[in-house]
């Protein structure tokens, strides 16, 4: 017996979407299946790996631990929403330049977490970087290049401090 579905309305990367979902459908699955935004990845589906990290009303959140019904009326930013007009966001550029990824599976989650971190802490001390990354797991890189990418991203974001918040991005 499937449960009654709920109508939801939410903004994702500046675009308004509607959906009809079972309450148990996670935000992660809604983004991937209903909106076909598959940049958000499912690594563990129980809140430990961080590959599913998105921003909800500007805060980094594990989308596998939220239900789509809870996201109704909220503003969601996914990895697809960072680049603007085909130009990579400074965080994405930094990951690229520092080779902060190998298979890329954890990368969207890291990039979203780093973006959220640097928005709040634009000039982090060295000892603040790793704790900020503790919620994201990577099996490939050993993290060194990811930490470098955070440093470089912070520098880039401070230089171009008028980086626009993604609005009305066409996928």
């Amino acid at each position, binding site marked *: 017996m499937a449960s009654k579905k709920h109508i939801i309305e939410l903004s994702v990367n500046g675009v308004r979407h509607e959906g009809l979902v079972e309450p148990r459908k996670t935000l992660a699955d809604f983004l991937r299946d209903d909106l076909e935004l598959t940049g958000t990845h499912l690594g563990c589906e*129980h809140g430990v790996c961080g590959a599913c990290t998105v921003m909800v009303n500007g805060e980094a*959140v594990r989308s596998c631990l939220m239900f789509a019904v*809870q996201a109704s009326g909220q503003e969601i930013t996914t990895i697809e929403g960072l680049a603007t007009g085909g130009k990579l966001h400074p965080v994405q550029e930094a990951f690229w330049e520092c080779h902060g990824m190998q298979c890329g599976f954890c990368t969207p989650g890291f990039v979203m977490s780093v973006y959220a971190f640097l928005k709040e802490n634009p000039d982090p001390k060295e000892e603040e970087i*790793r704790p900020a990354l503790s919620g994201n797991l990577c099996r490939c890189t050993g993290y060194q290049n990811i930490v470098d990418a955070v440093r470089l991203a912070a520098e880039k974001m401070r230089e171009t401090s008028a980086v626009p918040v993604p609005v009305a991005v066409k996928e």
Partner: protein
Amino acid sequence: MKPAPFEYFAPTSVEETCALLARYGDDAKILAGGQSLVPLLALRLAQPEVLIDINPVRELDYIQANSDGLSIGAGTRHRTVERSSAVREQFPLLSAGIEWIGHPQIRNRGTVGGSLAHADPAAELPALALALDATFTVIDANGSERTLTSDEFFVSFLTTALGSGELLREISFPAFPAGSGWSFREVALRHGDFALVGVAAIVTLDNTQACSDVRIALFGVGETAVRSRSAEKVLIGQKPDKQVIATAASEIIKDIQPLSDVHATSAYRQYVARNLVEQALTEAIQRAL
């Protein structure tokens, strides 16, 4: 895997929440931050028929600080407490401990009430509540309230004194004792992991620099967080030197029964707990001086 099907309600007031609890009782689970509950649902370790989402109940989200102490609404996010300058000034022990809760993403959604009601023995907040003598205001399905002490609230592994159809509404902390020092120590495998062992300590010195009040709360040491009253007794009335501190730390063994699991043995936890208590007491005393 995916959670089993459930019915979902999103009340916007405490009154509405209580009405839903009255209606569904044991069939329902409160959904707050979801950082502990949703993994259980995803792994199907819990399969409630009804989920009552209290995130829209904004009246549960508040921090009130005054000279009498601190009151925190059960729906207040960890990150709100983390960022509160009032908490940092008046309850530095709480600010210090909150930073150890999981990861930033968890603190963005997780709530103070949710963590306390979940009562994981390895969690920070139950131990902080014990150390700070917090009281818990609980409201039932009819809207009647009762207040519990921390000792009364935490019963056993993942079990609190919350009855079927009851909602934790507020947690209150009496004013931090003047002239007190504090310390928070935790050992975990990786930053943000569940604690293997941890300590929250408060030491109050009188004007002869003897201990007038000592609170030593440990977590990761059994079925619930624990106040080690045997250790605390050693220090009361004493001027705390290295020897007294060491004796106090050796007494915790009387109050803790750490379990062995895949992360650590009971013996390891006992050993680490004793060291952490010595370190925490030393630091707390230094802060008090």
